[in-house]
């Protein structure tokens, strides 16, 4: 026993595995490869942002950000388009959030495994695979033609609702699934009903991942083009002001404007405007991401009693 405890100064030859060196080299190469892969994601993003900045920077001015677009002369702005992007985003969230929240909560918390849940899941997955241009044609048919709303903000928002409902529902389900089962057990063990448990314990704990998910989906809504061209239209309102809250007026968003100026505009500075629009779109989405993440963190702290 005592002998076994003596410390040897050198490692005996037989303890060194004969392939240790080669395995270490392979390990180092693998680490390097993984690092390069991860860094290239960051690199690509930076390159992309830089490119858009260089291209679009000269187009940006106060006038460009708030001014009206021009039909045939240079110097048009994207003010109403920025407004419409946010307006349609908010309308879409108003339609999407309650439905997806309730449906997601039902699937995650209430329905056990069974036929109804399978059917809902299958429907959501199928809906999620419908290309946005197909959804746009559906919106064109239903809102623009059958209901006779013409191109309108609300028609665009409802089309985007169909498009994003499955993703939002999935977000809700995942956020609820991330709440530890022990919280539910504790609540039910105290004699709470399922509804009380959902409202007072599960939802407040899910607010962080919920917010993150809503932000990601919002980014997609903000940048969506195909679904809006035939439903919300590719021109701004002809009302008293191009900044128009009437949901039944046509409402071109920034992303659609980017497409339409490049594609069919008569203005001489179309490329310039498209570059500027792209930069504004990107910056908006980035700001939106950061703000909502901060808000999500604050909400989490508040609802978990840490603030």
């Amino acid at each position, binding site marked *: 026993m005592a002998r076994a405890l003596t410390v040897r100064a050198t490692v005996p030859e037989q303890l060194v595995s004969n392939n240790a060196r080669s395995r270490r080299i392979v390990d180092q190469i693998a680490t390097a490869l993984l690092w390069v892969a991860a860094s290239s994601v960051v690199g690509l993003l930076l390159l992309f942002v830089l490119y858009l900045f260089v291209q679009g920077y000269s187009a940006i001015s106060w006038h460009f950000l708030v001014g009206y677009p021009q039909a045939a002369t240079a110097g048009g702005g994207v003010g109403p388009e920025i407004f419409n992007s946010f307006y349609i985003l908010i309308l879409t969230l108003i339609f999407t959030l309650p439905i997806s929240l309730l449906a997601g909560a039902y699937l995650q918390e209430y329905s056990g495994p069974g036929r109804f849940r399978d059917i809902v899941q299958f429907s959501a997955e199928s809906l999620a695979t419908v290309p946005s241009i197909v959804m746009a044609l559906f919106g064109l048919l239903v809102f623009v033609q059958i209901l006779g709303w013409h191109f309108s903000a609300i028609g665009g928002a409802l089309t985007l609702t169909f498009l994003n409902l499955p993703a939002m529902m999935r977000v809700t389900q995942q956020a609820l699934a991330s709440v530890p089962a022990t*919280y539910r057990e504790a609540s039910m*063990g*105290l*004699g709470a009903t399922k509804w009380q448990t959902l409202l007072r314990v599960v939802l407040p704990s899910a607010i962080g991942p919920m917010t993150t998910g809503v932000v990601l989906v919002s980014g997609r809504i903000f940048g969506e083009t195909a679904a809006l061209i035939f439903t919300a239209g590719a021109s701004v309102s002809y009302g008293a002001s191009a900044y128009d809250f009437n949901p039944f007026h046509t409402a071109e968003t920034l992303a659609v404007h980017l497409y339409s100026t490049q594609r069919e505009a008569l203005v001489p500075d179309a490329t310039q405007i498209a570059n500027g629009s792209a930069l504004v779109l990107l910056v908006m989405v980035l700001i939106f991401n950061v703000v909502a993440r901060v808000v999500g963190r604050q909400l989490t702290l508040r609802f*978990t*009693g840490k603030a």
Partner: protein
Amino acid sequence: MLETPDAKTSALRAKMLVENVDIYYGAFRAIKNANLEVPDRHVMALIGPSGCGKSTFLRALNRMHDLTPGARVTGTVTLDGHDIYAAGVDPVTVRHRIGMVFQRPNPFPKSIFENVVYGPKIHGEHNSKRLTEIAEKSLRAAALWDEVKDRLHKSALDLSGGQQQRLCIARVLAVEPEVILMDEPASALDPIATSKIEDLIGELKKDYTVVIVTHSMQQAARISDFTTFFLLGELIEVGTTSDIFTRPKDKRTEDYITGRYG
């Protein structure tokens, strides 16, 4: 009828009565025909090797299996003579009267105060003065008040594991149950926190009926008045703790007590 553990105790009344209970997970029969009397205002320990079904049995006592898909309980479990599995009985009411403390401390991600008053609030108490009183009373009863009285509105998640578990006990006490079920409440705690929980259980039995699952025979011997031994889903033997540990009637109990099993 069980004999009293000591001469001073007056005649025992059964708080809960378990008759011919089987518990299934799908087709698997986890508990086989269990019968048990749980005496009022005493501590009943459930012991046995891992996987013997003692936790499964415990969760049948306040209908927690209702929440597990595929779990099924047959037979009768009565509380003061009323079958808690009878048609028309609301499991929510059952869990109000029979509280549960879990293996791992599971405070809500809320403040200490909000954790304690959660139960009273969901049962309709909204008077803030009354809630403050309940919080203090429950935290005192759980021997936690002095440690947390200056930080009631700080997050419960910043407490130590032992404090969290006592908070969970306070949270159960706040709804004023009659029976408290504990599923290895000290298994995730260090020895000092464990001894605090054990002292607390000794206090609780003055007012509450306690049923505790434990994997530690020493703990069962220290804190319980009665002990029930489970093996492979069967309730093998029940008796006063001193009888079970010194004069077990069944060979299998004796083997387990003396360390010859599992």
